[in-house]
Each structure stands twice: as C-alpha cells, then as structure tokens.
C-alpha cells in the first residue's frame, strides 16, 4: 500500500492550464458559426475573444465547463456535442496532435489518447482495459462536470475517437457503444453518428472494439518521424506543468487500495490533507468520498468480470463483502442495476 501520494503536477477544477486556443476555441468557433453572440457565449467564463486569439491565455476546467454550459444553453441544438467531437481530434494541439498522423494502428491512437489526456481531453480522463478479445475504453469526469455537461463531454469524446479512426483508417470499424444513461430524446443523433451498435442503461459509458481491428496496421511505421513526434509530445506535457487531475489521483489511490478498509481519514492521510480539507476539495469537484469509492468499486467489479472472468461470488469476495445480499444492494446503488444484469451481458 502506498503511503503518500505525489502532489506535483496535479490539476484541480480551478487550476489554469487549458490553452484557450485549444479545445475551448473549437467550441467557440462552432457556436459563433451558428449565430451565437460572442458576449452571451463568454458570459461568466472570464475570457474574451482577443485572449483566445492571442494564444497566450490558459483557463481552468471550471471556466471551460461554464463555456460548455453557455453553449448548450444558447445553441439549443442536439448535434452540438457531435459536431464539436468531429473537430476535436487530431486537433491543433501541438505535437500531441501531430503524433496521431504518424501512427500506424488504432492501438497506438488509443494509448496516446490515454497517456496525453491532460492535453487532449483535460475535462474527461480516458482509460482503458482489455481482455483476450476486446479493448474497453471509458471516460470519467475528472473536474466536476454536472450530468448535462458530462453527457456532452462523453458524446463529444466518443465522436472524436471514432471520427478520427474513420479518417485515419479510411473505413468504419465495428465499435460498440455503451451508455450508462437512459436513451435520450434525440436518439437519432446517436443513430447517425454512432450507427446501430448502441445500448443504453449500461453499467458504464464505454466503447468496445475487438482487438483484431485495432491492431491492424494501415501504414508502415515511420521510425524516425514517429519517435521524434512522441518525444515532442512528452516535452509538451512536461511544459504543460500538470499531468493528471486531483480526482484521477483520488480514483487511482482508491483502485490500488480497494481491498483495504478505506475511509476518508485514510485517504486524507495519504494525500497529506486534513479530512476536512479533503472533503472540501471533493465537494469543489461536485463529488464526495462515498461517490468516488462507489465508482472505484463499480469499475473494479466490471473489470474483474470482463478481464479476469471472475464470478459473482468471487467479485463480492474480492471487494470484501461477506454477505451476498449486501453486495447485491451495493452493486445496485453503484450502477442502478442488480449484478445479475452484468452477468446476463455475457456477450459484450
């Protein structure tokens, strides 16, 4: 068990590090091109168009989330997140964006997306796990987005990855889409942008793809150029000054210690914070200790099921539940579904 957690290069909701001319500028351009007034759009964001154009301004996750909220409110169109997603990747985010063009298969794309999340997707952490046949890619809020903003972010990140893979591979890969929420009113946007392999009310929002598809090379690797642009990406990340979010750090700690008796005091101790400060920080990110613990346990259960092939009692045992009824109730609280639904989804 790790005793303390590194506090360097961690960003919180109010850390100013997102270059305003990266993702925020794409969203601003989209809103302006659809006739939204720039003053209304930037109200409360503490940002103006000149600052974006200067390419010098960095903003915080909070500011970016306000911009997203304003866009949703002013544009009132169901396709905003999807159009925004289509422009997101590879994007014009320096070496990290250029690197995509040097890649020769989808696995490299997914790895790069997860490794450089702080630059490529600062509001939503990208994670993946895999079993023998499938790769599972999922996204988690890492800066305190509310439900509406989170839906927007997930729609746009999924669109971004799939649209870029279409573009790089020149074909439509058979992605499967799971969403943790109920089918939205604007389901036709999902049909047109994602196709027919979509299902709602799942345990978590994720993309699934058979390994065979993402390991197929579409070009030969360029040894020198590829290496150079990856080094440049590394430098870009170190210049950014932050690497991971506070919420991701909490989540990682909980995942690593999921079999211990964790409570708020233990977590605070590891972060060298008082429990009151820890509580306040979590609240600032629109969450609580219990919510984060539930999230970590839920994801561990899903991971154990898909990757390790654990049975239902084995998972309960791993997560230190002695009583099956108790486990069933808890699982229902984490996901909204009883564990049996997970086991009924044997075919992913």
């Amino acid at each position, binding site marked *: 068990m790790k005793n303390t957690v590194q506090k360097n290069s961690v960003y919180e909701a109010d850390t100013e590090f997102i270059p305003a001319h990266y993702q925020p500028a794409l969203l601003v*351009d*989209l809103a302006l*091109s*659809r*006739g939204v*007034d720039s003053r209304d759009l930037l109200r409360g964001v503490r940002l103006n168009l000149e600052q974006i154009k200067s390419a010098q301004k960095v903003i915080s996750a909070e500011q970016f989330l306000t911009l997203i909220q304003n866009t949703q409110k002013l544009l*009132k*169109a*169901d*396709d905003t997140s*999807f*159009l925004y997603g*289509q*422009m997101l990747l590879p994007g014009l985010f320096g070496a990290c964006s250029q690197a995509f063009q040097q890649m020769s298969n989808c696995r490299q794309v997914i790895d790069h997306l997860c490794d450089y999340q702080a630059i490529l997707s600062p509001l939503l952490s990208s994670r993946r796990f895999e079993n023998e046949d499938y790769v599972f890619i999922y996204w988690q809020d890492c800066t305190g987005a509310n439900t509406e903003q989170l839906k927007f972010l997930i729609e746009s990140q999924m669109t971004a990855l799939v*649209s870029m893979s*279409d*573009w790089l591979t020149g*074909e*439509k890969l058979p992605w499967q889409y799971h969403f943790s929420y109920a089918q939205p*009113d*604007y389901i*036709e*946007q999902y*049909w*047109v*942008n994602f*196709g*027919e392999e979509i299902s709602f009310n799942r345990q978590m929002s994720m993309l699934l793809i058979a390994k065979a598809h993402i390991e197929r090379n579409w070009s030969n690797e360029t040894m020198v150029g590829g290496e150079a642009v990856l080094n440049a990406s590394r430098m870009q990340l170190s210049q950014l000054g932050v690497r991971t979010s506070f919420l991701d750090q909490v989540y990682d700690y909980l995942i690593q210690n999921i079999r211990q008796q964790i409570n708020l005091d233990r977590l605070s101790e590891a972060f060298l914070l008082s429990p009151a400060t820890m509580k306040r920080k979590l609240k600032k990110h629109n969450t609580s200790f219990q919510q984060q613990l539930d999230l970590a346990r839920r994801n561990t259960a899903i991971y154990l099921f898909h990757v390790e092939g654990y049975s239902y009692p084995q998972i309960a045992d791993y997560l230190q539940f002695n009583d099956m009824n108790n486990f069933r109730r808890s699982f229902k609280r984490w996901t909204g579904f009883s564990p049996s639904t997970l086991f009924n989804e044997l075919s992913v």
Partner: protein
Amino acid sequence: MYNTLTKKVFFHSAYLYGLAIAIAAGIFFSYLMGEVKEWHQLNLLDVFSEGAMTVLASFWLLLVLRSRPGGRVTQLLAIGLSCIIFSWSMDLTDEFIRLPDSVVWHTWLESLPIPFALTALSIGIYHWHKEELAISAQMVKRERDFREYRLFDKLIPIGGAVYLRKQLGILIKESQKNQKPLALIAVDLDNFNYINRKYGIAEGDNILRALCQLLLLNLREQDVLCRLAGDRFVVLLPDTHQGVAESLAEELKAAVNSFAYKDRHSTERVFLSASTAVTLAGTEDSDSVFKRLNIGVLVAKQELV
C-alpha cells in the same frame, strides 16, 4: 441574424414613436384642461382593467412589429393596433384626470379611433390570410397537415426529427385506414465527416442547406422532406410502392452525385455523393421503421467500400 433583427426594429420604430407622441399629447392636453383626481377618488378596478388592456394591446403591437417584415399587411395591423392602444390609453387617462363636461374633444379621442382601428385590422387580417395561403404553397414538400414552428430544424428550414416522428405516426395511421402503402427514403451523404473536417462546419452547414433545396426540387407534390440528424435526410412518400420509391431514391442519389456545389473560399467544386435506403412502413411503431431504414443505410455504405 442579430443584425437583421435590430434593423427591423429600427425600421418599425416610427410607429412606436408616433404612438408615444400622440399619447403624450393626449395626456398633456387632458392635464391642462382638467384636474387630477385624489387617491380616494380612483376606481381601482377600472384602473386595473383598463391599464391591463392597454398593456396587452401594446404587447400585441410589439410582437407584430418584431416578427413581421415591412409591407402592407404589417402596416395595416400596426395602424389598427396603434389606434386601439391610443383609444384605450385615453380611456385610462380619464381614470386619473377629471375633465369638465364642456370638453367634448376628449370623448372623440376615445371613440373615434375605434372604427378606424377595426377597419384597418379587418383589412390587415384578410390580407394576412391571403399571405398565409401563399406561404403555405411554398411550404409544400416540407410539411403536411400541421405546422409546428417549434419542431423546425434549427439549421435548415424543414422539419427536424421530432416533426418527422409525428408526421410518420400520422401517415402510418392514414395508410392503414386507406389501405395505401407508405414508403420512406433515407438519404445520407458519404463521408460528410471529411467535408466538415476539410471545409469547416460553417461550410458543411451551407452544403446541407443547399442540398435540402436540391432534394426538394426532385420530390413530388405529396412527399415530405425532413432532416433526421446530421447529414441524414428522410423523405416520407404516402401512397407509394417499393418500386416507385426505389426509383425515386436512385433519382435523389443521381441528383446529389451531379450537384456541383462550390466552396466559398476556394470556389472549387465539392464532390458529393449519397447512399440511400428504402423501406415500407408496416403496422409497427416509428422507431422500428427508423431502425430498418438506418440498417439499410449501413448496408448501402458497406457496399460503397
């Protein structure tokens, strides 16, 4: 959009200034000739009801001026409403200022504008009716049986997904009642994603708008074109067999293929092509019809590769 709106308000504001000056003059002369009532002399119920009438009529006038382009119909409606507001506001002035019985002109100010107003409004509404008929004729192939502006697509002046669903529900019932087949065509642009990437979203929007006009030109009188989402359009074809729908779909595809849209910046031709799918609506709900149609599009796209 914002600019045209301000211009329109400016263009119409002559009515508002005129009305304000007339009302101010009326109040001023009443004040000169009469005496202001004490608080306890006011009939609050009258003040409230007459005040509310004046405020509401002003609201109608503002709506008419804000929403309508200039022209004869707007002029007539605005004159009629202005006269009504003037007359009612003079009525309201009475509640605050007592005039000696010898003053006759004030009664005229109250009563005379009303016949004018009603005549102007009647002629205005009659022409409005004519105008609506003319506009409806232009909306053929975009709507059928009912209009709901809230369901219009945000981007393109045709019905969006919700309008499409409602329309499909109605047409399915109709086709069952009359024992006539109902066909649907989906038209989906190929690789529209790349077009958005290459030319930008604003240009992508322009292409969709132009494409909508192009598709409308190729449809029959009874067909209805809607936008499902993104670059996917759906045509509802009442009283149409599969074969006819298929040949119509081929025509739409050919029209898109030979459409030579020019990019605004480079003025180069943007090459477009579309995939289509056809299905007949049976007795099922609209979602399963859409599902079949969507799968049809996917199959058509696979043949493309």
